[in-house]
């Protein structure tokens, strides 16, 4: 290997600073959430304790965070499943041109770039004017889909751009029906990418704020609950909650990464090169 140029070391330093910038603040509140009972929102640490985590479990102290966590979790799963199914179907549809596909494509882009508060406002208005009460599982669910679906579809477009159609042709030549081709050839090949779509669907929903703001009704999702806390809670209990939910997000990411890793390993064992270079 040729020796590293000088720029490599400069850029490495830059990259390390960038990572510090990305993770530093989160690590800081991670540390500060173990503040002693008398400590404040910044350093110095006045002792080390689990005081603020314990506070989280006394419900009246900080509102209904466990209820909102449960709602966010269920909503995340609902959005995840819907995003995967609808994105795969949409991705398959877009492999051929069909009448209206261009319009639909631009709608997807619009859904991605539209200011979130417009979705919140518009959906909220439709629900209130037609006399339906907004609820996180109906209006909130749909509003979040306008955020997760574009990401899911963009991933599917990327996947199908790289998809080798000769696998399908081979299956058809061997007499597979269109459904069989999808079920036994296409889906297994794109499976790792579907895990990616699922991860996006869940985490984007779990953290979504702006589009849920006016569409979730009287029961808050977790981000809404946390935002409410920022206006009236001025103790490290806020950091404790931040640390817990970030930890939870990281755990979810880890689980998904492990699934992808496991899938790829099983594949490598079976000696197939399907799906290589898809990630």
């Amino acid at each position, binding site marked *: 290997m040729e020796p590293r140029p000088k*720029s490599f070391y400069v*850029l*490495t330093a*830059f*990259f390390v600073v*960038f990572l510090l910038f*990305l993770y530093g*603040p989160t690590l*800081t*509140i991670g540390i*500060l959430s173990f503040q002693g009972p008398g400590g404040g*929102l*910044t*350093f110095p640490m006045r002792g080390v304790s689990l005081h603020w985590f314990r506070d989280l479990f006394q419900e009246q102290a900080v509102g209904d965070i466990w209820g909102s966590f449960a709602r966010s979790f269920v909503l995340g799963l609902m959005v995840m499943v819907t995003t995967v*199914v*609808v994105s795969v179907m*949409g991705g398959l*549809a*877009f492999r*051929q*041109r*069909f009448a*209206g*596909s261009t319009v639909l494509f631009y*709608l*997807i*882009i*619009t*859904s*991605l*770039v*539209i*200011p*979130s*508060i*417009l*979705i919140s*406002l*518009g959906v909220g208005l*439709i629900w209130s004017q037609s006399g339906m009460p907004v609820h996180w599982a109906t209006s909130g669910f749909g*509003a979040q*889909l*306008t955020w997760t*679906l574009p990401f899911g*579809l*963009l991933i599917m*477009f*990327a996947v199908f*751009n790289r998809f080798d159609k000769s696998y399908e042709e081979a299956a058809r030549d061997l007499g597979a029906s269109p459904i069989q081709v999808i079920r036994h050839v296409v889906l297994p090949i794109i499976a790792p990418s579907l895990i990616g779509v699922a*991860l*996006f669907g869940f985490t984007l929903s*779990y*953290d979504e704020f*702006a589009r849920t703001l006016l569409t979730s009704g009287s029961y808050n999702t977790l981000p809404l609950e946390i935002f409410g806390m*920022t206006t009236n809670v001025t103790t490290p209990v806020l950091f404790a909650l*931040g640390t817990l*939910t*970030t930890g939870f*997000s990281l755990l979810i990411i880890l689980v998904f990464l492990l699934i992808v890793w496991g899938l790829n390993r099983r594949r490598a064992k079976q000696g197939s090169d399907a799906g290589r270079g898809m*990630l």
Partner: protein
Amino acid sequence: MRNHSIIGWLLATPLTLVLLVFLVAPILMIVTVSFWGATEWSIYPAFQFDNYEFLLGSNVTYRVFFNTFKYALITWAFTLLIGFTVAYYLAFHIRSQTWQIALFLLCTIPFLTSNIIRMISWIPFLGRNGIANSTLMSMGVIDEPLEWLLFSDFSVILAFVHLYTLFMVVPIFNTMMRIDKSLIEAAADNGATGWQTQWHVIVPLTKPGIMIGTIFVVALVMGDFITVRFMSGSQSANVGRMIQNDIALLQYPSASATAVILLITVLLLIGTLLRFVDIRKEL
């Protein structure tokens, strides 16, 4: 061909339904309500231009729109510089694919955690007695704590850059990974310096990625309201906050009129940017 269209439609039906109900209908609703009237406690159907007249006749509107563009432009410049550098480092200086994937993941993970928590986490850094101030004071750089670190335009833009740089890194990295490395060797063989290769080979070939990143960042910053509200401590305004204020006062028609103008602005901007890149080809 006919058959293809029918299967295409069937597969696209769920997507179309979701977008019709939760994207198209809300937009139509907002456009409709923007012509309605409002009393202090209710809104009533009408067809009047009062909301637009008031909006377009007020100096505040132009100031707030100017502020919104300012945030977008500054954030764009920073995210582009940082994003390009990081993507370039990952694509051209990291030689093993495993490391490339690992470092790339490290860059994208924060995107999958809560934006609100990531904003909150700047408080211990930027507050009056925060880490930044106490470090600078103990180093003797300043005598008094800097007041503009938190709840200012500075902290708003810092948070934007912190939240959205990933949207530049990912598409630029994606485009860079497709650049044929032999082109760079060819440039070097023909006597190009590092900077010349950078400017005449890599940057032009990376343009589609830069455009996609730009679309993301511009759209997110233009449509934001929560970052500005939280990081400026309600002291600065952008269009999103203007809408949110009206909503809080139940002035839905006026909020809708502002929303319509904002939507037109964002779509014009993004539409212009889309002329420079074929998103579907670049994914």
